């Protein structure tokens, strides 16, 4: 992988040059402690030193709601009006979120490929950025604190400059289009990069122990902790909305008043919702809130491991930050693992 250096004073120029590769979206500051990915019209609004955005980049590939097709007796089924082929440049994506997208790729490339998702994926270039973890980040313990693919460029913050990893030919095109803005990496940069890399582990304050976790969860299937979580959980769906790997959606028809034409749509769903497991005939196989909380944890840390070989949690900390009831995945897993917890 080729690595070049971008002095920070050249960042704006470089980002400006990216507009010919697509509409630029990057994190902006929304409020005191909240950030979000947004369309960038003013480069000075870009905030690359952010902890986490409210919604993960998943919103660009699987929007919260979207039309799947339109229907009418005359024209039959027609594709949605949204242009899936618009080009985007998503700048400032953290390693955990890139892993999140890679997990969604696994899911949506299964037996039935989701072309809506992959068309958008194909048309969006990803430029990653390094970050300093805060007290809710546990990506290191989920092995998502660094990333080797799934991006076109990755910027590692070196205080006065970024070391830029070039991972794809598109990334290479982006750098070549502004060649004069980049410099070669020198010996001092290498020493500094190593120093920063070696320091990184010291920043993490929390973490999950993954060793034997699926088995421990199986053994603790009947643990009282699920009941306790069921008491606290509001079933509000927040954790699923903000999760970079929650991919469940609900499909429904929106009929026009003529009773003949309309749209089939989908919107993000959550396994915490009571009607998520409601089936024909009125049977609900996860009627109790506790069983729904348990299901969420089991799917992320146990079921997904069995199916895809790794947990579907990337340790981004969004669910910890945004749960109104302060349900904290690291606390829950630590409790389950604890010998003293009965």
């Amino acid at each position, binding site marked *: 992988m080729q690595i070049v250096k971008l002095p920070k004073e050249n960042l704006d120029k470089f980002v400006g040059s990216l507009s010919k590769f697509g509409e630029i979206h990057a994190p902006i500051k*929304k409020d005191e402690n*909240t950030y979000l990915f947004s369309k960038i019209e003013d480069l000075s609004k870009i905030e690359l030193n952010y902890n986490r955005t409210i919604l993960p980049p998943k919103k660009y590939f699987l929007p919260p709601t979207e039309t799947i097709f339109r229907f009418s007796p005359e024209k039959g089924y027609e594709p949605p009006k949204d242009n899936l082929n618009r080009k985007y440049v998503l700048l400032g994506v953290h390693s955990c979120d890139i892993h999140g997208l890679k997990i969604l790729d696994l899911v949506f490339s299964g037996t039935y490929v989701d072309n809506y998702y992959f068309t958008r994926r194909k048309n969006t270039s990803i430029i990653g950025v390094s970050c300093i973890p805060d007290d809710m980040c546990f990506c290191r313990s989920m092995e998502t604190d660094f990333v080797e693919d799934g991006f076109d460029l990755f910027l590692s913050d070196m205080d006065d400059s970024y070391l830029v990893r070039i991972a794809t030919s598109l990334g290479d095109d982006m750098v070549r289009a502004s060649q004069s803005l980049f410099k070669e990496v020198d010996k001092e940069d290498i020493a500094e990069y190593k120093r920063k890399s070696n320091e990184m582990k010291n920043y993490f304050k929390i973490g999950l122990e993954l060793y034997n976790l699926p088995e421990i969860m199986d053994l603790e299937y009947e643990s009282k902790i699920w009941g306790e979580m069921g*008491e606290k959980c509001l079933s509000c769906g927040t954790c699923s*909305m903000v999760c970079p790997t929650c991919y469940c959606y609900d499909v429904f028809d929106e009929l026009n008043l003529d009773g003949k034409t309309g749209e089939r749509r989908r919107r993000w769903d*959550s396994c915490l919702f009571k009607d998520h497991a409601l089936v024909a005939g009125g049977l609900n196989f996860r009627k109790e809130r506790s069983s729904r909380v348990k299901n969420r944890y089991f799917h992320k840390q146990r079921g997904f491991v069995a199916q895809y070989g790794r947990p579907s949690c990337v340790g981004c900390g969004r669910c910890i930050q945004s749960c109104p*009831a302060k349900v904290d995945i690291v606390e829950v897993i630590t409790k389950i693992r604890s010998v003293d917890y009965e």
Partner: protein
Amino acid sequence: MAKPKVGIFGITGCAGEQIVILNCEDQLMDILKILDIRSFHTALSENDEKCDLDIAFVEGAVVQPEEEILLKEIRKRSRLLIALGTCAVWGGVAAMKNEVSRERLKDEIYGPAGKIFESIPAQPLCSFVKVDFSISGCPIEKEQFLQAVASLVHGDIPILPKYAVCTECKTNENTCLLLEKGGLCLGPITVGGCDARCLSYSIPCSGCRGPVEEANVASEVEILKEKGFTLGDVHNQLRTFAAPAEALQTYFAKRGRE
């Protein structure tokens, strides 16, 4: 196929849902193409008070004995009865002081004039008649009403989202007013469908759409107490729109015994 015969009725409420229907200006002509509206006192000069109806939409809470009689007559005439708006579905603002005697309330509000009419504690429609479907909201969302009409005419039970306001608030990427700003926000236990409109204008959710299915009132109260609100503050907000709701009644009855 003949157009379904429809009645749109209002009992004690602000007529807000009926106004929302009339505000569907771009769709009114289409609505008239598919519905045979026989009774709609807010909009029609001539109303058929006796005919059988396929669908009755009823707004408002039952606050007077006459309204109970009227509601039961509407039920008898109608194949489907749809509760429209928070008052009809949950009791609404008229029910917020149900624990105070009606005599005292009438005296405080109307003085001697209050003696000429009867009043009963405000109740949602379902306390008196079978309700086939509910569209909550203060007022209802125009889009939900139109979706419901389209589904009903098509012969389907409408499907409205049952999730909490938080769900839509998050997808709109609002700053959480409960966690980040310490607001008395009922979003986690209030049914969504409003696209978290107030929250998008930095106003905490007041619970105007009524409680979400399986509302975890106990957990919500604990969260708000941690934010510095008293049980009284929370109770006052909760009972503003949905005091008769079972989730609230059960929670506060239990608290009362502690």
